[in-house]
């Protein structure tokens, strides 16, 4: 992983150089602007940093961020991220580099709650306001808001959906988590097990991680199916986990027989839902995360409005409701009709 951070630093240096050259003529920045009360006039440059690039989810966050920037006007989104969620150190460096680069604000999703807390503090100390999306830090300063999904509540509901789909009787179920140790993962795992506790007829017989790799998700699901021929249901907790689990179930010839409750809404997940391989998807609103993050940051910078946290909500998508207007606005977000109303 050291390699990634090395690349990152290299790219950040290049980016910083580019910014210096470009900024030489435009950047007249009021250094008090980031602090409390002061406001910034003129064009804004806001860094938006996902946990990692490479997934549909984060591309939608980006679309939301860019939409808010476009609607606000005269705002540039600097989008950059590490290539693996596990590259915590790389993200720390990236945040520091954006502070050095003197962006007007940073909107980001922490790859690790504890490890990124000092990075947030460093930015605030340098007068760069921070807003968190998707995953916050621990501790999180009061002036830093979090625009995120309530993962725990969503996962409790996933357990309920699974229980509902399986009905009466004893059933063996499995959990495909993604990144043990990451906060989002922990919240979904805890929420799901909490939800399972409400349904005494569901027994958790397997729990393995995919490390957000479809190949690995497929492999562990195949092995869980081998070890538990009577497996009735699976909760897969993110996009690659869902895709790998669905493929393993299909390869075992058990499509539709093993109920899969998934999370997120990549195109192949939607296709799986329509085909009946996947029973339901817990869909977050990443567009809204990016949108809220940038929108509130811009208001804060221009008008001094304090930023306050908000739950960006989840939608439970099934074959029945997938074509409804409300669900489609979340699934196919566009800046013409942004799914950001409360």
């Amino acid at each position, binding site marked *: 992983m050291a390699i990634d951070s090395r690349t990152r630093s290299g790219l950040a240096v290049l980016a910083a150089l580019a910014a210096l050259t470009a900024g030489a003529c435009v950047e007249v920045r009021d250094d008090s602007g980031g602090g409390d009360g002061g406001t910034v006039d003129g064009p804004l440059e806001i860094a938006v940093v996902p946990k990692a690039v490479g997934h549909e989810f984060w591309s939608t966050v980006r679309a939301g961020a860019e939409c808010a920037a476009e609607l606000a006007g005269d705002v540039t989104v600097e989008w950059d991220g590490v290539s693996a969620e596990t590259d915590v150190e790389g993200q720390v460096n990236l945040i520091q580099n954006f502070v050095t680069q003197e962006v007007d604000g940073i909107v980001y999703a922490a790859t690790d709650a504890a490890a990124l807390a000092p990075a947030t503090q460093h930015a605030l100390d340098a007068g760069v306001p921070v807003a968190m999306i998707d995953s916050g830090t621990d501790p999180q300063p009061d002036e830093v808001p979090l625009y995120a999904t309530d993962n725990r509540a969503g996962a409790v509901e996933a357990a309920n959906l699974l229980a509902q789909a399986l009905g009466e009787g004893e059933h063996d179920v499995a959990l495909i988590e993604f990144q043990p140790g990451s906060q989002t993962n922990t919240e979904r795992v805890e929420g799901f097990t909490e939800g399972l506790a409400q349904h005494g007829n569901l027994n958790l017989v397997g729990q393995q991680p995919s490390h957000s790799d479809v190949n690995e998700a497929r492999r562990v699901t195949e*092995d869980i199916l081998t*070890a538990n021929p009577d497996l009735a249901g699976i909760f897969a907790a993110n996009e690659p986990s869902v895709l790998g689990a669905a493929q393993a179930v299909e390869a075992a010839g058990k499509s539709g027989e093993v109920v899969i409750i998934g999370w997120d809404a990549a195109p192949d997940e939607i296709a799986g839902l329509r085909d009946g391989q996947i029973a339901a998807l817990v869909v977050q609103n990443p567009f809204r995360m990016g949108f809220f993050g940038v929108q509130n940051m811009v208001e804060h910078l221009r008008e001094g409005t304090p930023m306050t946290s908000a739950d960006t909500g989840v939608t439970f998508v099934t074959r029945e409701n997938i074509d409804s207007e409300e669900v489609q606005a979340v699934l196919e977000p566009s800046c013409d009709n942004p799914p950001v109303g409360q």
Partner: protein
Amino acid sequence: MPVSRSPRPDPSATAATAVESVTGARDRFRESLREHLSSAVSEFTAATALIVLFVALSLASPHFLTADNLFNIGSQTAVIAIIAVAQTMIIITKGIDLSVGAVAALAGVVGAIVVRDLGFTVWEATAVAVGVGASAGLVNGLLIAGARLPPFIATLGMMSAGRGLVFIITGAVGVYSLPESFQLLGNGEIAGVPFAVAVTAAVALGSAFLLSQTRFGQYVYAMGSNMEAARRSGIAVRRHLTAVYVLAGALVGLGGMVAASRVNSGQPNYGIGLELDVIAAAVIGGASLFGGQGRIAGTLIGAFLIAVVRNGSVLLDISIHYQQVIVGLIIWAAVYFDQFRRRRLEARG
């Protein structure tokens, strides 16, 4: 493994003769015998561990020794085995390839894109993926053999540049919406055998033949034993070393395509950390990072050992954290026993 009957003339002798023409034939024979024995010893150690693990898992889980599970293990091992074979060739030349994960991802996403956007068949896409891998290998080879960069550095650069290219090409989003036929390579069957397993077997047999039965194979070992001696004995080192990286790159491209086909999508994040798995497989199987040693059979055993540990752990629902510790312990144990036995062999020799 027939040890002393191997028809391959001892590779290190090819290099050694150039510098030590005074050494007696008897000594050379003894050295040759020792090299062969030590390769066999590593394979023996790893194979024993594999057998012990097989027996233990068969007792621990009623589901382990079933046709379905063995079928799964075969398919699950295919990609890592193909890429570990490539890594072995490079390790024998005293090199290392850190870029295999990134290049596999690059080949996989390019293979997926040409199917989705240009309507290529899966077989045409495989050819493209192999070409992508070979091109990356050519760059590695030219940097190492031509520009004389250390393999670690050259492939470190490729690891970074390759991953970057993957993100540029895909816009950092998975390549989806592929036709069903895209899965043939990774999920299809041929005469009841998973296609991926058949491909792996063909790659392994072909590579083993190349390394043990051809002049090119001799050169590979000779370069790894002593690059300078190989050069002085008239081997076109630059050309042959580059060729090794091109060939390995082509196999990595093939592996990346099998992986993409298996999950019916081009995954930009595929293969992060894969280089460590395949290096582990090669080392467990007896390849030496000091060059000149390593065989395909050993590497296959190493790859299976890792895959079986992972498979068994899931069957028994052992947490991932323990799985990683177990793989670490196996690497230590395999190399320790290996060196222990080699030392005994040398003491006797």
